């Protein structure tokens, strides 16, 4: 099996060192014990430690507790070296072995997953890639192991886009990175604010707000080529772009009529359609999973709350009733949860509301939390918060059992947007 990351090849020239580091703050109560044995490799020293990357991926999911290398009794290289009893004594439920070889200038990785209790090999697969794709090979293995054991598709190979502000808002950067914070790359730099990045569903483009013209305007940018296009230039607000599930439209906010209203923009015809008609603030649209409706924030009831509009009929329904500030909703991929910024006792947290029962549960314990963005597998969400006076990104599982933060070593980071599957 051969994975070809065309877009990554295009980017690889300007990849830079990771500027985000992971700190895990909380995991599930009974994580699966797994031993990821250092992989066999007989060539010169590699820039990446694949087994370590896989261990970190699995640990960060909160669902696994990988065994430290120093606690391993042996480093088996293939099935003949595996003594199940040793691993059972160490408490490991699963064992992962790997063999990396250079074949025709490409790195070929064969990995094997063993079930220690069943005493058998349960998976074996081979992938290859070039030197710039070593981390991709590791994330690929993480995805496979995670899916085999949890039954949920892994999202370790996905990426995120976020905004970084440097020098006290003197310089803004639109950043692309792996979801573990590695391989950061600058997509755009501006002395004026950049805001509200949103991935297209095909993972090839990003829409965002830039103030480079002296006013807010919405742009679309091809991630691989950096080719960009200004989509709006109206008087007043031009904000909060989000792609429709089919990728043909953007929902966005314009205040050219006097106050902020939700619009859709057909990206093929260029036609704008006004969706909301109300003198209050209507903003922060997000499409429903079927693309037939849009949820949005409105203060038409006096305080910001989440509403849903059905596009065909224009009918508006209020979705949130608990708390006096609910804003910027995102719908989970299974359509079952509404994730949003929720003020509770004066503190802003991320909360999830059950779409059927309406029950709200607060997911985060940090404060000034905002901009939740859900992973394509629905297992976790990334959000922006403050930590030691700086804007950082943090993640939490949708059941609130797993939490970690990605502190930035440089500027203030904010507004994460989790990519779709590629």
């Amino acid at each position, binding site marked *: 099996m051969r994975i070809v990351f065309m877009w990554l090849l295009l980017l690889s020239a300007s990849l830079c060192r990771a500027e985000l580091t992971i700190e895990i703050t909380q995991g599930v109560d009974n994580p699966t014990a797994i031993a990821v044995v250092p992989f066999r490799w007989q060539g010169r020293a590699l820039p990446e430690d694949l087994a370590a990357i896989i261990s970190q991926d699995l640990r960060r999911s909160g669902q696994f507790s990988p065994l430290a290398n120093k606690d391993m009794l042996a480093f088996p290289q293939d099935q003949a070296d595996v003594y199940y009893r040793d691993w059972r004594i160490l408490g490991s439920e699963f064992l992962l072995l790997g063999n990396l070889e250079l074949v025709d200038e490409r790195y070929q990785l064969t990995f094997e997953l063993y079930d220690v209790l069943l005493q058998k090999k349960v998976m074996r697969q081979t992938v290859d890639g070039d030197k710039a794709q070593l981390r991709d090979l590791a994330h690929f293995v993480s995805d496979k192991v995670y899916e085999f054991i949890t039954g949920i598709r892994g999202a370790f190979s996905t990426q995120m886009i976020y905004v970084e502000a440097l020098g006290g808002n003197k310089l803004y950067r639109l950043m692309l990175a792996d979801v573990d914070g590695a391989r950061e790359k600058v997509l755009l730099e501006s002395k004026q604010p950049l805001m509200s990045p949103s991935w297209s569903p095909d993972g090839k483009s990003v829409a965002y707000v830039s103030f480079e013209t002296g006013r807010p305007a919405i742009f679309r940018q091809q991630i691989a080529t950096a080719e960009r296009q200004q989509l709006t230039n109206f*008087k007043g*607000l031009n904000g909060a772009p989000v792609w429709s599930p089919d990728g043909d439209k953007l929902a966005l906010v314009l205040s050219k009529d006097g*106050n902020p209203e939700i619009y859709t923009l057909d990206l093929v015809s260029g036609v704008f359609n006004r969706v909301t008609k109300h003198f209050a603030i209507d903003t922060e649209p997000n499409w429903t999973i079927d693309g037939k409706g849009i949820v949005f924030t409105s203060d038409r009831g006096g305080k910001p709350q989440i509403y849903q509009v059905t596009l065909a009929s224009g009918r508006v329904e209020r979705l949130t009733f608990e708390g006096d500030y609910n804003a910027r909703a995102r719908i989970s991929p299974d359509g079952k949860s509404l994730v949003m910024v929720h003020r509770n006792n004066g503190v802003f947290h991320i909360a999830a509301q059950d779409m059927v029962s309406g029950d709200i549960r607060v997911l985060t314990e940090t404060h000034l939390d905002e901009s939740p963005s859900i992973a394509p597998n629905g297992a976790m969400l990334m959000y922006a918060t403050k930590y030691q006076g700086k804007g950082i990104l943090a993640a939490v599982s949708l059941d609130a059992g797993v939490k970690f933060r990605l502190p930035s070593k440089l500027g203030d980071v904010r507004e994460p947007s989790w990519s779709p599957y590629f």
Partner: protein
Amino acid sequence: MLSKAIKQGLGLALAMAVLAGCSTTDHNAEADAAAAAERAAAAQAAAAADRAALNAQAEAAAKLDTVFYFEFDSSVINAESRATLLTHAEQLKSSGASVRLEGHADERGTREYNMALGERRANAVRDFLTLQGVSRSMMESISYGEEYPAVVGSGDSSYAQNRRVELK
């Protein structure tokens, strides 16, 4: 500044008088020269007074607040701001200058909602000035939401200084 200008004017007149005194022309000419010197001094003094008045006006305008503050999630202009904005309205009407109204929010809450809030605040100031007779075409509202805090830091006093509209 005024007294300095008068002194300069008087000094000049005195110098002219001395020059006139040194000359060998007749009394009429001398009297004419003295009168001219007096007129010159008076004109100088008047010009200096005008300049001083203009300076005072400019100073007052510079002292006039150009930043107006708001409560959380509110775009209501307070009484103090209204009084200052009335003076701004008069100045804008007489000068015909255009003005940019930049709306800001504190860091609490969501970024795009805060963009809307910043615009609502800027528009509240615009509408107030419009009612006072300032031409709407001379004003532009721009919201920066929470992107440009005036004061960095999390706390009520920082927040209060960041919820604002700036006239530029």
